[in-house]
Every structure is written in C-alpha cells, then in structure tokens.
C-alpha cells in the first residue's frame, strides 16, 4: 500500500533519501524481510507491536536512541506523509543538519538538493540566472509542481537539449492531467518513446487518460502491458494498485484487498487495502 501510494511519489522519495534512513522489516520471524535486531529496537519503543495480534503498523520516525518522534498511518496520503516528515525535521533540527558535501554544490546541484528538501523557492534562488538546459528544465518542473503550467511552458520552451525532449513531453502532459483534459492527455502520450526513462510514468498516465474516459478495459490493457513489459519501479507499483482498484467491486463497507494469493495484483502484491486509489477518483 505504502509503496504504491506515498512512497511512489517523487517528492516523498527525494525528501526521505536526503534526510532519513529508511528501513523496513517483517514483524514475523518467518517473514521474508524478518530482522530480529530491527524488531527488538521497535518493540522496545512500541511494545504493542510485540504482541500476538497487531493491527497494521504505522510508519515510525525514530531517533537512533530509539525514541519515536513522529508517526504516520500506513494508509496516509502523499500530502499527509509529507506533512509528517516536514514537521519531524522541523521539530528535530539536530537530525536535519546539512552534510559537509551538501554545502559545496554547483547552482544546479544545489537546486536539486533544495528540491529534495521541498524548498522550491530556495531552488529557484539557487539557480539564479543560470542559462543552461538543465536549469530551464528544473524551473519548468518547479512550475509544474506549483500548477503554473504557463510558466512551465515558458521555461521548457527554452530547453534546446534534445536529450531532455521526452522529459519535457511528460512535464507538459501534466497540464492535461491537471485540467482533466483526458483526450488530450491520451493524445499527448500515445507516441511517447518506449526507451525513455519516463516511459512507465507516461504509460501509467496513458492508462489514466483511458480510465477517466470510461474506457476501463482499454486502461486495464495498458496497465497490464506496462507491468508485463517493464522492470519494477514506482509507476509499476502505482499501475498495479490501479489494476486492483479498478477491478474491485465498490460500495459501502467494501474494503479493497489483494491477498497476494489471488490474481488481482499482477505483481502478487499484498495489502492494497483501506484507501481508494487517489488517481481513480472522479475528479
């Protein structure tokens, strides 16, 4: 659930990688990800996780000394998890100091670093008047995250580097996604280069474009082909959740669930439960 949800979000991943040490483990000693030392550390702080019956555990933010300083629900949205991460860093500033290497960066690398920390205004300031393809592209991305698509177009129009062409195509497609222009989104992504590093992101959104035009079968076909043809990444996880969610019977009291034993999840995943897929909501 988390991996297909907030952990599949670029901004969440970037902040965690920059300022946290992520670790996951199975509470059961028989589990594939069992880790006795990790279990002992967590159960000492959260004895309720050491019992015989444990409800879905939360994400815990802990000091190396074993104190839990913040927590987030396993079913948190991207926005909710981001808020918890930001607040934890603000309230525990001694764990958020810049590393020595982070103080010696070029303008573009410093902008990327500040984007990691969700400081988009600082990133723009760091870029200053830098007139490079990467700088214009970064300005375009920041504008897109803010929902300022006219500014995004203006910045990306200055990028002449053809190696960024597919990135810009994807960035521009977000205007259609944001504006619910699903036919245009479908058209924008129909011929997206298959060898692009953003091919899975494009195919996922192509599926969404079809889904929101009430072409659910076509969307499922796109998502299943995407999952079958590519190595796993965050968009594959999100597509797998979409495959499961769009086949679930919805209604009051119905909880989405993939047991891992049935064929709902193309990846055989466990635990798409408790929260509707945010991208499939009627918008």
């Amino acid at each position: 659930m988390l991996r297909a949800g907030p952990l599949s979000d670029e901004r969440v991943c970037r902040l965690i990688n920059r300022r946290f040490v992520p670790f996951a483990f199975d509470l059961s000693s028989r589990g594939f990800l069992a880790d006795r030392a990790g279990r002992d550390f967590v159960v000492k702080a959260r004895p309720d996780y050491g019992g015989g019956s444990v409800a879905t555990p939360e994400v815990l933010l802990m000091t190396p000394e074993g104190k839990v300083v913040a927590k987030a629900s396993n079913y948190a949205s991207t926005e909710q998890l981001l808020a918890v991460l930001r607040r934890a860093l603000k309230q525990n500033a001694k764990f958020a100091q810049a590393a020595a290497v982070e103080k010696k960066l070029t303008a573009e690398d410093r902008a990327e670093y500040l984007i990691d920390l969700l400081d988009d205004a600082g990133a723009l300031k760091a870029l200053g008047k830098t007139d490079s393809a990467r700088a214009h592209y970064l300005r375009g991305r920041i504008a897109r995250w803010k929902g300022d698509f006219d500014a995004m177009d203006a910045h990306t129009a200055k990028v002449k580097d053809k190696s960024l062409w597919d990135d810009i195509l994807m960035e521009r497609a977000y205007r259609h996604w944001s504006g619910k222009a699903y036919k245009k989104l479908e058209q924008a992504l129909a011929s997206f280069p298959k060898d692009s590093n953003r091919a899975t992101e494009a195919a996922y959104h192509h599926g969404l474009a079809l889904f929101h035009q009430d072409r659910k079968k076509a969307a499922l076909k796109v998502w299943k082909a995407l999952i079958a043809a590519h190595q796993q990444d965050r968009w594959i996880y999100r597509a797998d959740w979409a495959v499961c969610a769009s086949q679930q019977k919805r209604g009051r009291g119905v909880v989405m669930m993939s047991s891992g034993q049935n064929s709902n999840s193309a990846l055989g995943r466990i635990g798409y439960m408790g929260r509707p897929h945010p991208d499939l909501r009627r918008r």
Partner: protein
Amino acid sequence: MRIAALLFLFAFHAQAEEAAPAPKSEPRLLMDKTGLHWVAPFDQALKVAKESRRLLLVKPIAFGTGKSGCW
C-alpha cells in the same frame, strides 16, 4: 464500523519468535524499486543513522512479506 471490523479481521497474528536466526534482509529489502535508498539489515541502518545524525524511518510490516517482494 463495518470497515473497522474487516480491518480487525485482517489484523496480523504475529508468529512466536523462534530459535532460528532471522535471514539477512539487505538484498531482499533492496528488491523494492520505489527509488527509496533502503538501508538494511537494521544494524547497518542504525549505524548510518548515528553517523550521519539522521532520523530512522521505520516501516514494520504485519501483512507478510514474500519472495516476490510482496508487502
């Protein structure tokens, strides 16, 4: 209320700890491809957190983990 009841039904029944040592988790956790830089096993994660003065982000899993990387 009904959702809560269903969630309870799916609640994890933790297995009793066994004498056998836990399997090493480093390559297994790295099967995840979200882009997160997971650190494992836990001793290594703790060492990195102490040395770099960072908070640990810990996700205990209670629904099971499988060889296909499920969780």
